[in-house]
């Protein structure tokens, strides 16, 4: 349950505040906290991304403003704030201006359900997992509005890509989350974390369902438009994607939304697969709560760092590769995984046997998935090599015969 809310309410009512005012104040406190903390986290995220990517690419990264370049992001924000907000004359006023607001709004709403520690969850609704998926659609709408409203061909093309990519990857994302929901029997983030508290707080679902966790991670990368799947802002083909016509603070809002959505997916992944706030010593009186919040943040940042690592390492996929990876590999795999798990759980078996069977299914899915990806990469390499031999140029551009 969202205990912070009840504690605050009790304190306010105890101080003689009428109940409806107390409700309003408590809700306002929660909303303000989320609205303030999320952009502040984004400051750290931008700095972290630039530093880590620099290290991967053998550079130093921002190091001039503040210690270790920590204040670089603030300087950038001041720059963006002072820039001119350009309104293209042929752009659609409503759609163009509403899109950046909607995109940030959609991501901030996600922060309402992710858990910090036991009893400190914005709202622990009983459909928390589904809520995360459902509100992703606001981001799609925002990108679509931006792409259309800018009245720019590249932006519009990127808008098409947004819909194609995000709607496709939503399916394996939902199904991989469903694997956890099926096993835990709840969609509440609070209870999901409670159920992973066995073995000194190390009974994480990632050990039980590594396949689902891997698929979730890949889909989270795609849903938050991170590197192997960042076709939406492919610089060389689409210049910058749907936010090409945006400048100043409106561009910064898209930027903010993208960083926060990556972080929120890392957070959800940590809550669902890495045990949430669970860890050794969270039940200790006094420091237990702080320890739990610390674990939660460490796990979230660990997944985020993994995302940055992928971003610094992998090349971008092509559109057709991205779509066939989703529909030909991820979707069949997750459907198979879910069917297997349903059959296993319906059979009246003792819990350890169920756990072992689920693990076997996941390992099988991982094996098949990695084999399929490996085969696709080998074929792709073969095809690319052949594409550059002179034979394949017949009928296209022929070298001039001397």
């Amino acid at each position, binding site marked *: 349950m969202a205990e912070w809310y009840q504690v605050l309410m009790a304190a306010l009512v105890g101080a003689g505040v009428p109940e409806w005012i107390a409700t309003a104040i408590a809700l306002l406190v929660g909303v303000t906290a989320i609205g303030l903390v999320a952009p502040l986290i984004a400051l750290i995220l931008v700095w972290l991304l630039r530093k880590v990517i620099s290290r991967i690419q053998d550079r130093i990264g921002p190091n001039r403003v503040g210690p270790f370049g920590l204040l670089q992001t603030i300087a950038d924000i001041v720059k963006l704030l002072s820039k001119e907000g350009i309104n293209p004359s042929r752009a659609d006023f409503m759609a163009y201006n509403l899109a950046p607001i909607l995109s940030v709004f959609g991501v901030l709403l996600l922060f309402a359900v992710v858990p910090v520690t036991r009893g400190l969850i914005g709202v622990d609704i009983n459909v928390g997992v589904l809520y995360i998926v*459902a509100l992703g659609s606001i981001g799609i709408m925002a990108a*679509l509005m931006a792409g259309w409203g800018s009245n720019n061909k590249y932006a519009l093309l990127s808008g098409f890509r947004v819909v194609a990519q995000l*709607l496709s990857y939503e399916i394996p994302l939902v199904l991989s989350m469903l694997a956890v929901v099926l096993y835990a029997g709840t969609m509440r983030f609070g209870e999901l974390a409670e159920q992973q508290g066995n073995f000194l707080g190390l009974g994480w679902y990632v050990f039980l369902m590594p396949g689902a966790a891997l698929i979730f991670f890949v889909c989270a990368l795609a849903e938050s438009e991170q590197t192997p799947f960042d076709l939406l802002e492919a610089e060389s083909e689409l210049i910058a994607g749907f936010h090409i016509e945006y400048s100043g603070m409106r561009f910064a809002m898209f930027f903010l939304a993208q960083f926060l959505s990556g972080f929120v997916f890392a957070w959800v992944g940590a809550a669902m697969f890495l045990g949430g706030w669970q860890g050794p010593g969270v039940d200790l009186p006094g420091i237990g709560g702080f320890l739990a919040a610390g674990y939660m943040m460490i796990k979230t940042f660990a997944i985020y760092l993994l995302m940055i690592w992928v971003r610094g390492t992998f090349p971008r996929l092509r559109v057709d590769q991205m779509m066939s990876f989703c529909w030909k590999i991820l979707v069949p795999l997750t459907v198979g995984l879910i069917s297997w798990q349903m059959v296993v759980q319906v059979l009246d078996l003792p819990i350890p046997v169920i756990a072992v069977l689920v693990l076997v299914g996941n390992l099988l899915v991982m094996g098949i998935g990695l084999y399929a990806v490996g085969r696709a990469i080998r074929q792709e390499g073969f095809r690319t090599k052949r594409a550059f031999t002179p034979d394949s140029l017949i009928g296209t551009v022929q070298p001039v015969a001397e």
Partner: protein
Amino acid sequence: MPELPVEIPIPTPHQAVFIMVAVATSVASLLVVTNRNLFYSALCLVGALFGVAGVYVLLEAEFLAIAQVLVYVGAIATLITFAIMLTRGIMFGTTSPNNRHMFAVMSMALLVFLLVAGLVDRVPWAVAEDLTLSGDGKSLIVDLGWEFVTTYALPLELIGLLLLIALVGAVMLARDDE
């Protein structure tokens, strides 16, 4: 001076929120049909669908609300917008919301409204005595799932079949002729 016979009711916070959500939904739905730009109509439709989700939240049917957002806003409204974006002529021009079918459609709409209003008003709907939610709300979703595969298994399967037929039909229509 005689007292007013009718007390003006002061809405509770819950009712106030409901009124706001209901007004927003109604205005958005009205804009869907009166707008001259089809793209704006689609955006208003999204607003209206969100409003309906808000009504579900107020009725404490969270699952229904989330499903509404997931299916209607996430998939259907996005596809409608997508279709409008692809038809370039419609996208940038303005169209008149009126055409020669206006009066026929308006009388139909009026009839449907009267029918629904009559249904809501006259039919003695069975209202459960105790509408308080059972326990922590976790059992609600478990119950919902259980009911879907036991009591309502046939309707669920039929809906699945319907969707499959629609899917196959769409593929047939979109397929290249060989």
